[in-house]
């Protein structure tokens, strides 16, 4: 069968010593930054992006970057359970019941539940990626400019729907992101636009600099607003093995979380955060003991942890098949491909099967490594939590500076980091989410190119976007999402959801 041939190729690629090493480095780094609050996967990947160029082999660098992403989901739950603080935003929900379990002396069981649930979800989701990516690729190969344009509209609109807070602000952030993405030479005529006469901006603003500024630097500034101590309650974790009763209670939530997470991960703009939250709500609703939630219910750990890991894996599907990022991390992965000279999109699977399948296979290997890393080595990660933040952030700043400068040795990129750090911080203070801006920034040039190409093909007739069936369906979907988000009842519910998540 073709699927097994492909998977075999993937495992052969992923299990070369070199690639195993990069996978290990990736998941180690991912766990590390996942455990440490205040530094997320997005900022880390942004910093390491230029370094991956030095690795040379695109397969190895993508394997490593992917490892950081899903590794961070594992690490984040450790912090959530032990100090009631999400190491990653997607593990915010885990903190609710996980921390309560830890207070009752069941930290070991909670950590094991999170790890085993994540491993199961990761395995299933990896298989789903392998199963669904090829047929989607075939559909995507028939896409013309109009379809691509409409698809990007869906992606951008979804990122708005899933951002926190005001819909209209998120919409404005997307538009601003698109405009920032247009800085640089015009693709058709080569005239410089919005460069303010600065020659270094002719190729556009550096994506890494913008990402590091908006996510990394702005995040550090926010953490510096109120400095307070983290108290690590548990220094020694015992009783890792869940009891038979625990296994019985976590089986169904893990299955439901995996299913829910897999579906939500594929949605553009969605991903791990939404998945873990939706799973928690679902578990609370179907549970026979809803009053136990919030007081240390194992279901409240098992479900969301499976869901966020499943979503982290399946969010690779739109990136691999269509070249469309479902979230900022996937946007960075696309950036990594472009740095390596690979054009993201449906051609990747056909032209570089080793890369495509190697990456998929490495995710399963990486998940296996993670469970080994997380359970026996838990003591090491716990000790890491005692590192004070004032030691951490100078390191983050130093690595960011090196990372950004190494892209093309341009001092202007470092000035951009400072500018976008400031800008991102101001916008964050004004309750504007950075994710839609970054998505708009990445898609800006592609969006314009496809729009202009489609309009040339139709001789200036905009009806091309609705007369071509796939394009029309996509636009309809986008309109539907927008209408639903703006409906008063949904709006209210959505506000409740995000308020609860922030708490």
């Amino acid at each position, binding site marked *: 069968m073709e699927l097994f041939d492909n998977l075999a190729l993937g495992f052969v690629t992923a299990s070369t010593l070199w690639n195993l090493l990069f996978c290990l480095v990736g998941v180690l780094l991912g766990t590390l930054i996942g455990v440490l609050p205040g530094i997320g996967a997005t900022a880390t990947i942004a910093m390491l992006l230029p*370094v991956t160029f*030095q690795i040379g082999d695109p397969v190895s660098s993508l394997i490593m970057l992917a490892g950081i992403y899903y590794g961070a989901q594992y690490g984040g739950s450790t912090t959530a359970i032990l100090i009631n603080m999400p190491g990653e935003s997607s593990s915010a929900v885990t903190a609710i019941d996980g921390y309560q379990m830890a207070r009752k002396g069941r930290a070991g069981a909670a950590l094991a539940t999170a790890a085993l649930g994540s491993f199961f979800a990761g395995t299933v989701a990896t298989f789903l990626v392998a199963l669904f990516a090829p047929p989607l690729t075939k559909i995507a190969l028939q896409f013309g400019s109009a379809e691509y344009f409409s698809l990007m509209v869906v992606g951008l609109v979804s990122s708005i729907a899933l951002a926190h807070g*005001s819909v*209209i*602000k998120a*919409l*404005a952030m997307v*538009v*601003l992101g*698109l*405009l920032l993405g*247009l800085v640089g030479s*015009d693709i058709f*005529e080569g*005239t410089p*636009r*919005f460069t303010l006469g600065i020659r270094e901006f002719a190729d556009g603003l550096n994506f890494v600099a913008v990402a590091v500024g908006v996510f990394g*630097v702005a995040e*550090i*500034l*926010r953490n*510096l*607003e*109120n*400095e307070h101590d983290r108290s690590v309650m548990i220094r020694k974790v015992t009783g890792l093995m869940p009891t038979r009763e625990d296994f019985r209670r976590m089986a169904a939530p893990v299955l439901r979380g995996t299913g829910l997470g897999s579906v939500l991960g594929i949605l553009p703009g969605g991903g791990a955060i939404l998945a873990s939250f939706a799973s928690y709500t679902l578990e609370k609703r179907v549970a026979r003991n809803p009053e136990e939630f919030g007081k240390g219910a194992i279901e409240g750990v098992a479900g969301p942890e499976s869901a966020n890991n499943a979503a982290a894996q399946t969010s690779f599907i739109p990136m691999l098949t269509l070249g469309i990022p479902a979230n900022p991390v996937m946007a960075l992965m696309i950036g990594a491909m472009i740095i390596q000279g690979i054009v993201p999109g449906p051609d990747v699977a056909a032209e570089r099967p080793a890369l495509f399948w190697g990456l998929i296979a490495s995710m399963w290997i990486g998940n296996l490594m993670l469970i080994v890393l997380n359970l026996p080595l838990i003591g090491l990660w716990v000790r890491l939590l005692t590192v*004070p*933040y*004032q*030691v951490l*952030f*100078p*390191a983050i*700043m*130093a*690595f*960011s*500076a*090196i990372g*950004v*400068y*190494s892209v093309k*040795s341009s*001092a*202007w990129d*470092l*000035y951009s*980091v*400072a500018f976008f*750090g400031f800008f991102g*911080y101001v*916008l964050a*203070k*004004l*309750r504007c989410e950075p994710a839609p801006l970054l998505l708009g920034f990445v898609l800006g040039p592609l969006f314009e190119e496809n729009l*202009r190409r489609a*309009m*040339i093909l139709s*001789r*200036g007739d*905009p009806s091309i976007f609705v007369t071509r069936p796939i394009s029309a369906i996509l636009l309809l979907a986008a309109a539907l999402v927008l209408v639903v988000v703006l409906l008063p009842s949904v709006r209210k519910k959505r506000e409740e959801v995000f308020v609860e998540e922030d708490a």
Partner: protein
Amino acid sequence: MNKLSIDPTNGACGAIFVAAGLFFGYQSLGQEIGTAFRMGPGYFPLVLAAILILLGAIIAIQATRVAGEPIGAIAWRGMFFILPAPIFFGLTVRGLGFVPALFFTALIAAFASQRMRPGTALIVALVLTIFSTIVFSYALGLPFQRFGPWLSWVGA
């Protein structure tokens, strides 16, 4: 009827979007606009800028009606030290070279925390510099000059 009061968070937010829209819109007008059939370099950004101004205006108008959340604490000290750090690195990495530029960058950034003591900051910056020089310069072989021309008189 209502007293005109503007919510500072949303008011400032709307103003920023309008200002950004005006900037991009004005710049686009300097470009060839073209037609919907053959769009010039200015067409698409002009449309986007108009949308951005509109959205900014809506946010600003809403600010007069609904009071939002307060802005909260602002990391003045953080901004004062964190933001200059990458700029300093950009200005000096060629002249001073990778090693000293990185040391001072980390040192500047370290002072952003109120809890940082000078001694600790020096140690943190020193350890970071040694670590980064080994990893990035020697192990990964990034093509940076370790000590730049400004320091040539030291004989390094």
